[in-house]
């Protein structure tokens, strides 16, 4: 397998370098470096957004989620992603038009202008830093551990992590967002092909879909219904997850940037429909992989199970492709997230463009190093950490949606309450305060609190309008 991996890896790296060189910029400005000229077509938009959303948690996390908690994982991600497509079409179009009517440089800067004070932008920036950095780190760590296990004598875990971060930083520095998007397209295609080859192989083990479910039913029937054998998939879990995922295109800057820089409204709509189809087709084979694991490796560790399903149970060429697919999935999400943190920072800077861009490029490197350090320290709960990241940034939803969509300038209430909600959620995630009160989970309470605050603020704005 080593030979196959070296060949596939060399081809993969060569294409990455070629694409980075092709998108190399002589004169870097915020518009061409951070926003790729703001002219994203449907196909490039589809693949870059899909590759950004479907990360290592899709390749490693989802099969394990299906294996451990059962078919409710389909509702958790598949149905929630399909809901997201509708909201993206209805709300995303309006947000894109509003954002582009001014000088868009990033969501934090847009909110600063919408609210009329910097505090709103800082709350948004704080939220994305807090909830994106751990998510980036856990992906780098997941893939690094896996590579270390596949090639035990080659490099330590931190060595693989450093290589992955270095690749991301180098091509981000060379070509900016356009280089990232070209590479995302390549990686999205690799991810799609690899996950289907492996998923198909897992399904072939049983002969048919019906035979697969029959076998799972005889092994552990609880996997085939909700709430699953561990009782994870409650209605509340699904509602919190759906809110978090539906808001992703507006609350996670690596996705909202792509929505806003689509070249036309119709390109955005077509991209959204394509995303819905892509999501369904990508999640489906992870279910086959999970059911395969439920029958063959029900009690193995995550590492052991993923090792078998991606590597040891596959032909050498497929295993090498599996490794490349895994690296591609992790890199295509992490690079966009690190870069988006830089873009958000840039949108808060008020110095001249050249200086702001120089500062941003330094901070993209800094964010990469922070993510690398965190990756050496972080845990391996990939799906649940991803969900925490989604839920954390979803707390920014009211701040972003009211700020952009409101015709009148909102006050301090929503930014302050959002900051309080973020703080409570961080303390709850760290175990300092309880993660539920009575039957309600903390996310549900915080979403309800922010919804109530939004209602109060909208009422205040309405009354203000009537008085004046």
């Amino acid at each position, binding site marked *: 397998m080593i030979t196959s991996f070296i060949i596939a890896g060399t081809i993969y790296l060569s294409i990455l370098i070629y694409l980075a060189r092709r998108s190399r910029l002589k004169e870097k400005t915020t518009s061409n470096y951070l926003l790729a000229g703001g002219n994203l077509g449907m196909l490039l938009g589809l693949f870059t957004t899909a590759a950004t959303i479907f990360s290592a948690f899709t390749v490693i996390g989802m099969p394990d989620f299906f294996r451990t908690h059962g*078919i*409710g994982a*389909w*509702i958790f991600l*598949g*149905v929630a*992603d*399909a*809901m997201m*497509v*509708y909201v*993206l*079409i*209805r709300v995303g*179009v309006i947000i894109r*038009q509003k954002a582009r009517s001014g000088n868009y440089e990033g969501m934090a800067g847009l909110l600063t202008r919408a609210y009329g004070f910097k505090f709103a932008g800082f709350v948004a920036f704080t939220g994305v830093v807090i909830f994106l950095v751990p998510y980036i780190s856990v992906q780098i760590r997941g893939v690094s551990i896996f590579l270390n296990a596949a090639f035990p004598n080659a490099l330590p875990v931190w060595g693989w992590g450093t290589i992955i971060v270095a690749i991301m930083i180098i091509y981000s520095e060379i070509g900016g967002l356009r280089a990232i998007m070209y590479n995302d397209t390549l990686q999205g295609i690799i991810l799609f092909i690899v996950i289907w080859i492996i998923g198909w192989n897992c399904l072939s083990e049983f002969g*048919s*879909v*019906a*035979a697969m*479910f*029959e076998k799972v*039913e005889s092994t552990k*029937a*609880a996997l*085939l*219904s*909700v*709430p699953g054998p561990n009782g994870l*998939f409650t*209605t509340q879990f*699904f*509602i919190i997850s*759906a809110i978090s995922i539906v808001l992703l295109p507006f609350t996670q800057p690596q996705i909202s940037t792509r929505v806003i820089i689509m*070249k*036309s*409204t*119709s390109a955005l*709509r*077509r991209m*959204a*429909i394509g995303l*819905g*189809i892509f*999501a*369904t087709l990508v999640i*489906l084979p992870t*279910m086959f992989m999970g059911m395969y694991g439920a029958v063959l490796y029900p009690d193995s560790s995550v590492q052991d199970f993923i090792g078998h399903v991606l590597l040891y149970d596959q032909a050498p060429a497929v295993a090498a492709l599996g490794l490349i697919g895994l690296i591609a999935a992790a890199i295509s999400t992490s690079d966009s997230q690190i870069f988006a943190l830089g873009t958000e920072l840039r949108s808060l800077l008020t110095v001249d463009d050249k200086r702001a861009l120089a500062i941003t490029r330094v901070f993209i490197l800094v964010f990469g190093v922070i993510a690398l350090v965190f990756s050496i320290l972080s845990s391996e709960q990939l799906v649940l950490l991803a969900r925490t990241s989604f839920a954390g940034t979803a707390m920014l939803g009211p701040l972003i949606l009211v700020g952009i969509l409101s015709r009148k300038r909102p006050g301090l209430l929503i930014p302050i309450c959002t900051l309080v909600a973020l703080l409570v959620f961080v303390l709850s995630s760290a175990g300092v305060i309880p993660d539920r009160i009575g039957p309600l989970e903390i996310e549900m309470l915080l979403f309800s609190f922010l919804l109530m605050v939004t209602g109060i603020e909208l009422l205040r704005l309405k009354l203000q309008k009537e008085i004046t």
Partner: protein
Amino acid sequence: MKFKKIWWTDSIFIIMTIASFTGLLIPAGQINPKFVGIPYTVWVGVLFCILYVIVAYIASKLQEEGPDDH
């Protein structure tokens, strides 16, 4: 006219979203009725995904053209 029609897709979306969190899609502990051997929540879940995308497609057709659509 299109503006009015799009409320139909919004209504369908809201009804489907509410249904997604009820026993219609996620009945506790229920595997049957199966469809070609596929457990209930899986095949209804896939059906919901397809329906959501179809409703989104119809909504995209009913939306007004943007200022940058030519």
